[in-house]
């Protein structure tokens, strides 16, 4: 069974944001790049399923500039078999362009499951997975936190507002992963060495025209430093008073 995992390279979550001189994008100076944390759950899920069934192939796809090769190598080092790098020097303006490029690359692979992280931690859009499902006319479940495969039916659990939902989907299907699904493995030294020999196919990505126009990237208004109302238990009455009378939240 062939599984595809779509991954994105994103700034480390510890990144302090500075806006680039264009006023619309993140200043990349000093930014450390990592594999999107939610995508690591997707990679792990695909690898576990391959190990369980004892057969098949895990193909990683990522879109971006030359730097993305690092993210692809880490997925290969974890155990993915091969990769497709959709090369694009310009940053993707929106999710639909990315989804179209990915769907185009996935269409002919004959994948049984297409995995995504539930969202990328840079744009927080949570769009590309369901968009690819729509473009490929596949069933989709987002926010997967539990996964089982029963023949050709995926049975998943997903967290929704105030509860859990159990969903069954026939393969082929698109799944987006949430934290809690698994514990992503670290790449072993052997895995890192092996990754160097695994094939990465490079293709030019066609992102098409912009579907959204980014007017600006701004820093949120800074919060004014607050007030220490006191120390220890003695401060509790004053805290309750300010919450009632000043903040009016109680």
């Amino acid at each position, binding site marked *: 069974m062939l599984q595809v995992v779509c991954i994105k390279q994103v700034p480390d979550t510890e990144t302090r944001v500075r806006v680039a001189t264009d006023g619309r994008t993140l200043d990349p100076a000093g930014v450390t790049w990592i594999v999107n944390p939610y995508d690591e759950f997707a990679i792990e899920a695909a690898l576990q399923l391959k190990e369980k069934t004892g057969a098949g192939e895990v193909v990683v796809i990522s879109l971006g500039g030359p730097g993305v090769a690092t993210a692809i190598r880490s997925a290969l080092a974890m155990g993915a078999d091969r990769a497709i790098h959709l090369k694009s020097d310009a940053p993707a303006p929106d999710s639909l362009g990315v989804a179209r490029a990915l769907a185009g690359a996935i269409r002919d692979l004959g994948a049984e499951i297409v995995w995504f992280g539930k969202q990328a931690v840079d*744009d927080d859009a949570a769009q590309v997975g369901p968009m690819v499902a729509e473009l490929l006319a596949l069933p989709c479940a987002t926010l997967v936190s539990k996964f089982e495969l029963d023949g050709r039916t995926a049975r998943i659990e997903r967290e929704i507002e105030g509860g859990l939902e159990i969903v069954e989907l026939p393969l082929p299907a698109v799944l987006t992963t949430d934290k809690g699904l698994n514990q992503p493995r670290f790449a072993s030294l052997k895995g890192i060495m092996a990754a160097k020999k695994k094939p990465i196919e490079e293709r030019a990505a066609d992102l098409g025209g912009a579907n959204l126009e980014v007017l600006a990237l701004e820093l949120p208004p800074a919060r004014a430093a607050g007030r220490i109302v*006191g120390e*220890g238990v003695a401060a509790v009455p004053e*805290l309750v008073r300010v919450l009632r009378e000043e903040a009016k939240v109680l």
Partner: protein
Amino acid sequence: MSILVFLEQREGQLRSVSREALGEATRLAAELGGPVTGVCCAAADPGLAALGDAGADRVLLAKHESFAAYEGAAFAAAVAAAVAATHAKVVLLPASSLGKDLAARLAARLGVGLASDCTSLAVEGGRLVARRPVLAGKAIQKLAFPASPAIASLRPKAFAAVSGAGRAGTVEALAASVDTSLPRARVTGTSAAKGGKVDLTEAEIIVSGGRGMKGPEHFALIEQLADALGGSVGASRAVVDAGWRPHGEQVGQTGKTVSPRLYVAIGISGAIQHLAGMTSSRCIVAINKDPDAPIFKVADYGIVGDAFEVVPALTEAVRQLHR
């Protein structure tokens, strides 16, 4: 300019996020002109006629037994039909777990851009401009839409519902043909969260605990305060990674981004990833032993002290207040 609002229902109940989206549509309609139409996919009418009061000129009901539970492709087809029927130039959906999925499907189907999880919308120079937090709130992106319809999903609690709008709220049937032969995802069961707690993204009050709680057993203190306040329990990443709390409670960059009325951070030092996820809260209270903890830099009010002493006293004081 015709505005279409997707009205989310679950188990026959309209969700409050639907009224929030209608409220924002009504506000935008005052600037853009044109009618506000709601569209609901459901197995039975969840009380749509009452939505005239919440801002709907009319409501389209796509009724089909398979709409009892969410299915992306079928819902997207129905909403796309409503877009065509109303010539909508703006489509608003709640950025709920369902709405985010549906909005993405709809945007792909219509071939237009989507602004997810917006916290404000505005009309600038005659066009719609969306603002949305990125990097879990470390920055705000300002977006315009080159093509029509503009699709935006709205963060729960960031927009106000209206009442007394006095619109007609006429309910009309929208022909919904669902091809049940297609391979589809099917909801086969649901279970409510323990104790019927409100999801963090929709909670008015959140009490979060961090590593300062020293062990999972001490989260009873957090739960008791949350109960007294009528709020939900949150947690820092360190606590979730240690297995003390479920991942659904994690607040921060790899957890949930929240904007409650009151956020109480207990024993949380305030790593940048955590701060990113909660600094849009209206009022932040921090309780921490370390006076130099970064959490105090974003908190409106703080108590420097031992959580094991301060939290029970605070819980008792809140209980007294409600008695």
